[in-house]
């Protein structure tokens, strides 16, 4: 374990909501520069896993370390993109402002965001194809656009490790493409990304690693080796009808 180049180490992690144990004895390691999808049925504890790792949900047992450090010490290197529904989109603010919030930690107390901070936030919006909406009130953005704003906010944090909770849920095809392009770019820069994902169909296309979760880890590894019918059936239960890559009839839009 000492010689491994794993940047995330999770050992015997468990967590609960009220009296229901949601996660039991979770163990896995993630290597730098990987793009991992966390998949599993509804209620499997996918979001809870991320939240527990990031100390946003109490841990029952076990420990998590990032870059060989505790979460507290590694905090600044970690970016988190929560589910879109976790905030109030009627909040009186605009897209640029939300992205700038990603910089508040770096700006520090008793300082206001400077022009260069706004510039940085604007560039992140540009990258997500959202520069035209910078001054738009956030409630007037579509779901896909809101998700892009969240992604832009994560980008300005310039973290080394990103956690994203269902970034592709309920977004339009072009947003899905834009988000995946950004994830690929992050990976090229040597960053590590873990994504809670709901769509098994796109796992082989979008990710290089997969983690099957249903209250505990059923399988974890590279997509080629791990993304197998037997693992899917094991994780989701018996009657999972599932189309293999070759069987599907989906045409991607070219926009």
């Amino acid at each position: 374990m000492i010689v491994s180049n794993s940047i995330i180490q999770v050992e015997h992690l468990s967590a609960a909501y009220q009296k229901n144990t949601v996660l039991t004895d979770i163990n896995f390691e993630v290597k730098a520069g990987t793009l991992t999808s966390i998949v599993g049925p509804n209620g499997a504890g996918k979001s809870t896993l991320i939240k527990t790792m990031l100390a946003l949900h109490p841990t029952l047992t076990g420990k998590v370390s990032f870059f060989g450090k505790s979460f507290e010490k590694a905090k600044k290197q970690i970016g988190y993109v929560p589910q879109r529904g976790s905030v109030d989109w009627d909040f009186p603010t605009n897209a640029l402002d939300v992205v700038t919030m990603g910089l508040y930690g770096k700006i520090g107390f008793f300082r206001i965001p400077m022009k260069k901070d706004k510039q940085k936030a604007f560039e992140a919006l540009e990258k997500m194809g959202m520069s035209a909406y910078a001054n738009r009130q956030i409630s007037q953005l579509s779901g896909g656009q809101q998700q892009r704003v969240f992604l832009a906010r994560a980008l300005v944090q310039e973290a080394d490790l990103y956690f994203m909770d269902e970034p592709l849920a309920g977004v339009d095809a072009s947003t899905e493409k834009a988000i995946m392009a950004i994830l690929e770019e992050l990976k090229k820069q040597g960053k590590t990304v873990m994504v809670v994902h709901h769509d098994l169909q796109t796992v082989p296309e979008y990710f290089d690693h997969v983690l099957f979760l249903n209250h505990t880890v059923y399988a974890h590894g590279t997509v080629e080796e791990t993304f197998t019918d037997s693992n899917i059936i094991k994780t989701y239960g018996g009657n999972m009808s599932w189309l293999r890559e070759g069987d599907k009839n989906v045409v991607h839009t070219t926009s």
Partner: protein
Amino acid sequence: MTFTAWIIVTAALVGLSCGLMGVFLILRKQAMMADAISHTVLLGIVVAYMVSQQITGMSMLIGGILAGLLTAFLVQSLHSMKVRHDASLGIVFTTLFAIGVILISTSVGNVHLDVQHALMGEITFIPFTTTYVPGLGDIPKATLLLMVVLLIVVFFIIVFYKEWKITSFDPVLAASLGLPVLLLHYLFMTLVSITTVASFDAVGAILVVAMLITPAATAYLWTDRLMLMLILSGGFGVLSAFIGYGIAAWLDTSISGAMALTTGLIFIVSFLSSPTHGLLSRWVKPKQLI
């Protein structure tokens, strides 16, 4: 200054400081926390009186802050022990308020403090107790207290402006960026408490809720920008003070009651006629395509 002028100034100060705090109460979805704290500060003031045997601005502020923080802490604790948030709020504030009421009638009773006064306030009597301030002359004590509290509130809103914004919009992000979310929460509750205590004498525990929530909710109907929302909310608070005094003088009725009624009237007018969120605008123009 005349008594009338002092009453209006005091009312306007209540409107302004409550209007500013109210914006964040609403955006943090803690409007009902204002209701709770406005009641529990009574306990704080009573205990402060019992300890110091006098009612001074300072002892009231300290008592109020402690009561406010105790409320926030107990609500948070009960909630983390699996009691629903609204239920824990209801349990905590009624219990603390009841203790305050019992203490007033059994142990304090004889003075300036009585339940009627605590609930309704009596702004008319404010000009009678003055204190000398160098440079300003004789100022009613309650008015001076409100001035100090307004300065504190404005100071903290400006200094932590971006922190209030991020912890109100997305506390999870704020926490993951390493901001002291819990500390800011209790600082915020402290500010709500001192605003409530200072407004207590003027408008009482029940109507301070109207002054905290309604102008802010009204401002929310008019703007999509936080800074503007703060200015408008403070403005509506002050406006309510002036119009409320006018109504009270005209109908010869309670000033604080008329002020609270005015905040409600301004809200209704805004609710109907605001260009962006108003009821009428929805009928006049069809929803725009985005």
